[in-house]
């Protein structure tokens, strides 16, 4: 199939960017979207040009490294998949495809289609972990976990941190990512001791970088793991509870 690509090219973080058009002829329908970009890049290199920079790693939808805006849809117009899982058979011969990087003040463009997602690392550092003493390996299943809690936590833990939720949000809010990371730990017994400190720390770190949720629900549609906005409600509830607990603690000196 023959395609026309309109790709954002930007040669560095503070450089001005622009769209450039590329012809992608003779692309196999069986190619993945990233393989299509590989082929285009090879041709660019052969003709002496600078290849289109894009992030990618596992190419099986589990690492969260890849992710671009394809014709106005994060990860393309296929629900519940990452860019690497999108195949060219979903497009038609002669299509014109616009490829853009994620856009948000908290995720500036590094080069072409690559954005700096280190804000997500800052949020995780703020509390997306549990503190455990080192020592001998504990027995498996030592801590009983209710099945429902394990399921809900696992659904939230499916988040691969690709930032499609932020890219899709009209407010560039980081709520779905942060809420998924919080629900993942806050639902489990192991997450309880630090639950409320974690919630305050991660929410407030998120707010340093990103906008605020207005409950559109676009993030859930964009999420390659179809993570529910129910997690956002769970986070909102925990945040206020945390603030009250924090107040009580301040009085316990």
């Amino acid at each position: 199939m023959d395609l026309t690509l309109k790709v954002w090219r930007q040669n560095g973080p503070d450089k001005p960017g622009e769209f450039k058009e590329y012809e992608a002829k003779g692309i196999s329908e069986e190619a993945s979207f990233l393989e299509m970009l590989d082929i285009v890049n090879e041709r660019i290199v052969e003709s002496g040009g600078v290849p289109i920079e894009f992030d990618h790693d596992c190419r099986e939808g589990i690492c969260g490294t890849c992710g671009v805006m394809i014709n106005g849809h994060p990860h393309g117009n296929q629900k519940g998949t990452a860019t690497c899982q999108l195949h060219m058979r979903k497009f038609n011969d002669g299509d014109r495809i616009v490829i853009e990087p994620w856009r948000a003040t908290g995720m500036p463009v590094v080069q072409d289609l690559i954005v700096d997602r280190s804000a997500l690392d800052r949020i995780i550092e703020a509390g997306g972990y549990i503190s455990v003493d080192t020592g001998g390996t504990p027995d498996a299943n030592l801590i009983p976990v209710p099945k429902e809690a394990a399921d809900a936590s696992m659904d939230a833990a499916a988040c691969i941190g690709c930032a499609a939720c932020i890219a899709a949000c009209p407010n560039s809010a980081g709520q779905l990512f942060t809420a998924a990371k919080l629900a993942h730990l806050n639902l489990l017994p192991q997450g309880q001791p630090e639950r409320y400190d974690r919630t305050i720390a991660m929410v407030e770190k998120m707010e340093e970088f990103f906008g605020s949720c207005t409950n559109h629900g676009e993030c859930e549609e964009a999420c390659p793991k179809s993570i529910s906005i129910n997690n956002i409600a769970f986070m909102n509830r925990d945040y206020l509870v945390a603030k009250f607990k924090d107040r009580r603690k301040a009085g316990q000196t």
Partner: protein
Amino acid sequence: MTTTGRREDTKPARKLPWILELYRSDVAKKWIMAISGVILLGYIAAHMMGNMKIYFGPEEINHYGEALRELGGDLVPKTHLLWIMRIGLTAAFAIHIHAAYSLTRKNLQARGRVRYDVPREYLAANYASRTMRWSGVIVLFFVLFHLADLTWGTTNPDFIRGDVYNNMIASFERVPVAILYIVANLALGLHILHGVWSLFQSIGANNRVYNKWRRYLAWGFTAVIVVGNLSFPIAIQLGIIS
């Protein structure tokens, strides 16, 4: 930084009173928007229901107006309880607007100046949710006009203080006012259609079992309010009430 283990050293210095410190957070602002929203929704429902008395004649509705001033009966001086409610309502309105204003500014900043080249094809966001800011501003300006027209009487030449029946008819008899009222109430409808659903999400009232009821409630509440409110100018224009 050295750690001495004393509580004073680990306690972060609090710069503002707790409630103001809380209000600095976006998530808390949404909580406060939700709670002030509930107060305003309660008022809208009571206002619409009270006005229904116009269908029972001038005696009924004028008596209703008087009853509002006499709220609290013999227990409080006349109009005192009404004023407490008015102040509370104004405060809820002001804080709702301030939170919306500051979150909007933050969101525009977070989104940045470079927008996507391809116009977004929204999958989940609906017309109501995307126009909250516009419908909110329309409702704000309408409320100011509404007060001037029916409470203070400044824009209503035939205004008679205390004669609610006469004032409503004198106001809605004018075609431009009736049209303005209808447009503003449709904007209000859009605003509360998203607002009623959204507030549950903001306060974390979430349960897979009853989540679908949040949408039904939003549609049902909005339908009742919009139909009720639109009935007044339409009935007056059609001469059903005169």
